[in-house]
């Protein structure tokens, strides 16, 4: 566990600061009233934020709270719709990453902007500004004889000054993730930045590496840098940050010094006290049993039982993403899996539906063999609809029928039964309220939310027994979200066993009968009860629940 390090200058900071930015001593950068709208969603709704030199300011919030968006605006990757940014009191405009760099802002991304095939020296050299050598002949010769190691020299020295021994000649792809991150950090430092923004830097690090990172952060702070740390791990924030600002659903909920707060308080701010007071979805008329339903299609059977026993799943590059996960889901039950993106959700989900092999461990269905697709009838809603869920150049009708064309119900000999298929597609459009003028429009013309509805409609309509859904309501407005939740509940009522992955905790707890948090490739089940929210927050924040 990283320990709280010494904090130079901690005494000079005011306690429990929650006033508007205008009252603070001139910060290095100050953002005021930032608004960012994506279609129907307000990602940021009038957020104020500032950071001073010589401080580590943590930005806390769960997925979708707006932290990345806010920082992308500061780093010039995106522009805000409203609000202003000031540097040392003077307004500035940050239109591009290059502009941000010239203002002394550098961002260390979660997904590194390194070239995997390059050596460390080459990656550092790529970003290094051209040498300011005076003589013409030297500059000319530099064109013909360029050594990446030389160009990277300054960056490498910076690394050494931080206590990191970077081997300049190793291929970046061969480095451990922690070392890659160091290269990314050094790249940022080499641009002579005064403000460093770190996007979830500890997400990919292990215990020792995290402590080392924190030592570096403190040293940088002591040298006078301003550091913003986007994070969700509470223990780390408490250990290294000086101040923390909590965002929730695009709004700034709280801002104070770390000394003045604790984990529970932060967790509560992060989750929001409204969790328990969410308007009960189960009171919707559509959610309760419909007599017609019960008569027309008897429930599949409460005897369904999926069991995964200590499965290990490899990630896309063969790494150990899922380590020894066991879970058990029964028919008529929704099992929710929460957790921040990047903890192995896709690997686990694909393993649960048989799209990915398990390197060890077993999956069984009803105690017997597990052949998803045929036995049990499976439905899968993938994480990325554009990449894996839809063929965006094909029509809405076609996209709704991906699975229907495989069913013998819609075949007459070698041919497809065109009219029943179209009928099915238009029924689905009506039932799921997919906003499209008709069946024959390309999916690319639809909004993201409607595209998601296509994926959901396709998955749920054929009465599957085993359903795995990843963020099924992503991009949907509140009514459509409730509709999908209703559909999932009805599937549950019909006896299906359902697993829902969601980064939205409200959704997770509205839907699930049982829930667990996936963090670092390990699944931890969450007990229901009154201390639920804090426990979740702590788990999400990577801390063990207190007994």
């Amino acid at each position, binding site marked *: 566990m990283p320990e709280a390090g010494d904090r130079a200058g901690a005494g000079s900071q005011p306690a429990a600061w929650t006033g508007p930015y205008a009252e603070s001593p001139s910060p290095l950068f100050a953002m005021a009233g930032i608004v960012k709208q994506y279609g129907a969603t307000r990602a940021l709704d009038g957020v104020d934020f500032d950071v001073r030199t010589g401080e580590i300011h943590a930005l806390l919030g769960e997925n979708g709270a707006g932290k990345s968006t806010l920082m992308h605006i500061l780093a010039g990757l995106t522009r805000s719709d409203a609000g202003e940014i000031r540097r040392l009191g003077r307004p500035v405009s940050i239109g591009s*990453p*290059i502009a941000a760099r010239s203002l002394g802002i550098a961002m260390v991304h979660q997904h590194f*902007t*390194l*070239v*995997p*095939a*390059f050596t460390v020296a*080459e*990656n550092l*050299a*790529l*970003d290094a500004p*051209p040498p300011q050598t005076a003589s013409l002949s030297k500059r000319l010769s*530099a*064109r*013909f*004889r*360029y*050594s*990446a190691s030389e*160009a990277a020299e300054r960056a490498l020295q910076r690394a050494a000054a931080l206590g990191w021994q970077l081997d300049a000649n190793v291929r970046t792809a061969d480095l451990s993730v922690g070392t890659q991150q160091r290269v990314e950090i050094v790249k940022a430092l080499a641009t002579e930045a005064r403000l460093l923004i770190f996007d979830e830097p500890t997400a990919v690090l292990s215990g020792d590496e995290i402590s080392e990172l924190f030592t570096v952060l403190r040293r940088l702070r002591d040298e006078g840098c301003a550091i913003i740390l986007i994070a969700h791990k509470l223990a780390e924030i408490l250990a290294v940050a000086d101040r923390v600002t909590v965002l929730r659903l695009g709004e700034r909920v709280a801002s104070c010094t770390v000394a003045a707060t604790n984990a529970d308080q932060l967790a509560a701010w992060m989750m929001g006290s409204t969790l328990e007071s969410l308007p009960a979805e189960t009171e919707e008329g559509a959610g309760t049993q419909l007599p017609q339903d019960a008569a027309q299609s008897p429930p599949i059977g409460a005897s369904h039982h999926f069991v995964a026993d200590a499965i290990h799943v490899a990630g896309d590059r063969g790494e150990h993403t899922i380590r020894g996960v066991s879970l058990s889901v029964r028919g008529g039950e929704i099992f929710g899996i929460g957790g921040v993106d990047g903890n192995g959700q896709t690997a686990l989900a694909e393993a649960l539906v048989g799209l990915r092999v398990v390197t060890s461990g077993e999956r069984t269905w009803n105690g017997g063999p597990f052949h998803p697709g045929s036995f049990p009838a499976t439905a899968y809603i993938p994480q990325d609809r554009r990449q894996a869920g839809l063929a965006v150049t094909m029509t809405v009708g076609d996209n709704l029928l991906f699975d229907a064309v495989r069913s013998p119900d819609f075949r007459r000999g070698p041919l497809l039964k065109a009219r029943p298929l179209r009928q099915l597609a238009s029924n689905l459009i009506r039932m799921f309220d997919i906003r499209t003028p008709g069946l024959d429009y390309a999916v690319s013309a639809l909004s993201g939310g409607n595209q998601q509805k296509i994926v959901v409609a396709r998955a749920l309509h054929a009465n599957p027994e085993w359903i795995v859904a990843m963020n099924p309501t992503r991009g949907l407005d509140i009514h459509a979200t409730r509709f999908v939740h209703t559909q999932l509940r009805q599937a549950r009522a019909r006896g299906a066993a359902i697993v829902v992955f969601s980064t939205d905790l409200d959704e997770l707890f509205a839907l699930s009968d049982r829930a667990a948090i996936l963090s670092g490739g390990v699944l931890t089940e969450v007990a229901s009860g009154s201390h639920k929210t804090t426990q979740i927050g702590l788990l999400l924040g990577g801390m063990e629940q207190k007994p």
Partner: protein
Amino acid sequence: MSVIGGAVLGTVTMATPLLLAALGENVVQKSGVVNVGLEGMMLTGALMAIIGTQWTNNPYLGVVVAAVAGAIIALLFGLFAVRLGANQVVVGVVVNLMALGLTGTLSRALYGKQQSFLTATPLPHLLWNQTLLTLLALVATPMLWWWLNRTRGGLELRACGEQPIAAEASGVPVLRVRLMAVLFGGMMAGIAGACLSVGDVPTFNEGMSAGRGFIALAIVTSGRWNPWGCLCAALIFGCMDQLGVQGQALGVNLPHDLLLALPYVVTLLILLSSSRFSQAPASLGRPYRRA
């Protein structure tokens, strides 16, 4: 000159156009673009070399004309495949067909009746029966290797082919770099075509490049995107080509046509065995659209 010696020199001669085209394509692919239109650019270069040589009575100027012609075709390719971001393979195939048809009919129109291109002077043989172009190819190999691996420009180009987002974030103009690479590749292909037409006996036949543009693509792959590897692979293919032309004279006991088919069979076999594209530039073939 001994038979073996003659065969070796013949191999080098036949390898030259392959190597020139492959070196150009090596640079192009390192920048992340697949140029399937290599064949068409070679063919265009071949024809324009003859025409240029006749105009100027100087085969070297003919080569220059060929290089320019190749670059112009490449510009067309680059506009669609790089700037517009259209499917690189489709555009390449179309460019090929266009060049095939254009050169064929143009040559028929110009040279159909008379064999008038015999008035063009061929490239003079310098040393060991090799032309300047062979020298060019052999010098270009280490030079291109050096440029790709030991200069800033090469670093930036390689970044475009591996991770264009990272390159763009570091201020490299990815689309411009790729376009420049494509022009260079077209120029080299044009020169390779000149090698075919004015390298020895000045001649032009429809489709005379006979798939060498595609063999050059295979050379880049089997040479693992390294100019030295391209040299080795080009020599192997040149050897196959040589066997095809002179095989029976050299005592190889296979029917003439099967010998001619040898380079293509060997290409398939080599591609079959080196199926792991682990060395390919990571973003090869993917159009880059500025966010």
